[in-house]
């Protein structure tokens, strides 16, 4: 043990309390340490972020002066009543909800066969390639993917050109393309947890199922699917809430009559801030309800 020989020259244990007052004080008081750690993050998050959210919520109760169109502090529920009484607002909320649910369903429908193929059929080499292949577009950039979908489905674009060969035509910009674009954007968030969950299913469950005479599809239906529920729910939280808050896809590939909740918030924030503020409660409410429903299933804790 040659290293112990140099130790005494480096520090003298009995002198430590005198030389390190800060360390000693912190070591004796765990609450103080915790406070020191949390002070900065909490000041930032509460003082800036929660403060801003609260202020926005308060604005939702304010009035807009009909003559000067200036915002005036006060208390009115009119802005919230507008969410339910204005038919355009109601249909936008329902449309956005429908789009978000469709994106989630579409992602799940493709994520399950992809996951089964990667985990159970592909060779290890192919599995590694596929894992990179579904992660790569995640990094390619949000707007890049919207640009890509726009030039794929535009009037003189690739899709119409290929469909033209067999005499067909693409649907043109509209809600179906918005759903497809949002699926394109958020699909990896569903595909990765589903694939991981399928890989984690113990191999002997498949053996047992086969020994008991189940064919492949029966095994998938009765063994794989129930075990996938937590992963599907975790993935759906992403696909649902990300789609719900999006409005740029609708703006660039949606054509007319496809605006989403975000479009209304964005277009009202300068003209009528109280209405925009009231409307921003809608996606928050949808996401919170969705989280509460999924929490009841207990799937998130098991992840």
């Amino acid at each position: 043990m040659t290293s112990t020989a140099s130790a005494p020259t480096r520090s003298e244990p009995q002198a430590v309390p005198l030389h390190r007052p800060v360390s000693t004080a912190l070591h004796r008081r765990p609450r103080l340490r915790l406070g020191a750690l949390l002070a900065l993050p909490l000041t930032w998050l509460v003082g800036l972020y929660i403060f801003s959210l609260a202020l926005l919520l308060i604005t939702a109760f304010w009035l807009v002066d009909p003559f000067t169109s200036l915002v005036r502090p006060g208390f009115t529920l009119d802005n919230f009543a507008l969410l339910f009484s204005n038919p355009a607002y109601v249909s936008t909320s329902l449309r956005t909800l429908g789009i978000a649910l469709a994106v989630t369903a579409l992602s799940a429908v493709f994520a399950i066969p992809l996951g089964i193929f990667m985990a159970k059929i592909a060779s290890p080499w192919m599995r590694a390639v596929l894992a990179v292949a579904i992660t790569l577009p995640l990094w390619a950039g949000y707007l890049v993917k919207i640009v890509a979908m726009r030039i794929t489905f535009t009037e003189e674009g690739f899709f119409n050109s290929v469909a033209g060969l067999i005499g067909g035509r693409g649907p043109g910009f509209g809600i179906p393309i918005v759903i497809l674009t949002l699926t394109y954007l958020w699909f990896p968030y569903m595909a990765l947890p589903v694939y991981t969950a399928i890989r984690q299913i113990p191999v002997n469950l498949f053996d047992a199922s086969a020994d008991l005479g189940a064919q492949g599809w029966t095994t998938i239906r009765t063994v794989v699917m129930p075990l996938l529920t937590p992963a599907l729910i975790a993935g759906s939280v992403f696909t649902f809430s990300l789609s719900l808050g999006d409005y740029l896809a609708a703006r660039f590939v949606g054509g007319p009559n496809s605006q989403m909740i975000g479009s209304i918030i964005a277009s009202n924030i300068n003209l009528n801030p109280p209405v925009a503020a009231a409307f921003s409660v809608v996606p928050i409410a949808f996401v919170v309800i969705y989280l509460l429903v999924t929490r009841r299933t207990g799937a998130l804790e098991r992840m």
Partner: protein
Amino acid sequence: MLRLGRGSKIALGVIVSIVLIFMYVPLMLVMVNSFNDSRIAAWPVQAFSTRWWEIAATSEPIRAAVLNSIVVGLGATVIALLLGTLSAFALSRYSFFGKQTVNLLIVLPIALPGVVTGVAFSNTFNSILSPAGIQVGYFGMIIAHGTFCIVMVFNNVFARLRRMSPNLQEASMDLGAGIGQTFRLVTFPQFRTAFVAGGLLAFALSFDEVVVTIFTAPPGVDTLPLWILNTMARPNEGNLVNVVATVLILLSLIPVYISQWLSRAEEDE
């Protein structure tokens, strides 16, 4: 083993091929159209040229936008590294009343739609700080980006700290090292890869962010996503957007490579 007939395997293979075609054909179209001589992206491409690449290479707005994105990304990453690491230590080492709430606070800025976060910040900047004589200007973007990037660092560092034993730190302090020395020599080296990975994710998130930026960028200042957004609205420069998008697609190979490298480094540790 999962017993599947030949037909079922082929069916699954076909679905996987459809998914891959759906993922990669649009990206290929962007890359091919960046060499389209025409003003508007179309298929089939009538004439190829590198003129949009030449225009992009010398474009002052693009250069300024890239610079802004890097500055904002670095600023946000520094904020996220500091606040994310501090809260990861607090939540992984202590149990206290309200722990779940603190966790929720960290996740909230990314969980809520970007438009809500953006509108909330711009409302505060314009209706509280500005009348009080505080012009956040350029820093508004950095503050907003830093806020939703915290979770990236937090998640990575938190996961690592939970797996680390506090005994090594105790041992270090018993041997006479102070809190700073222990952190520098014992604690930090153990979560360095998670710290770096979190920082990279935070930077990537900020670099790509557009909705919050729309509401918090000062007038006349474009980040790269904002530049793309504004140029997309001008149909005559469609293929200039494709050049920038192509560069971004190629750049996305870097984080994929780094994450592979990091996970290998993690296995070695």
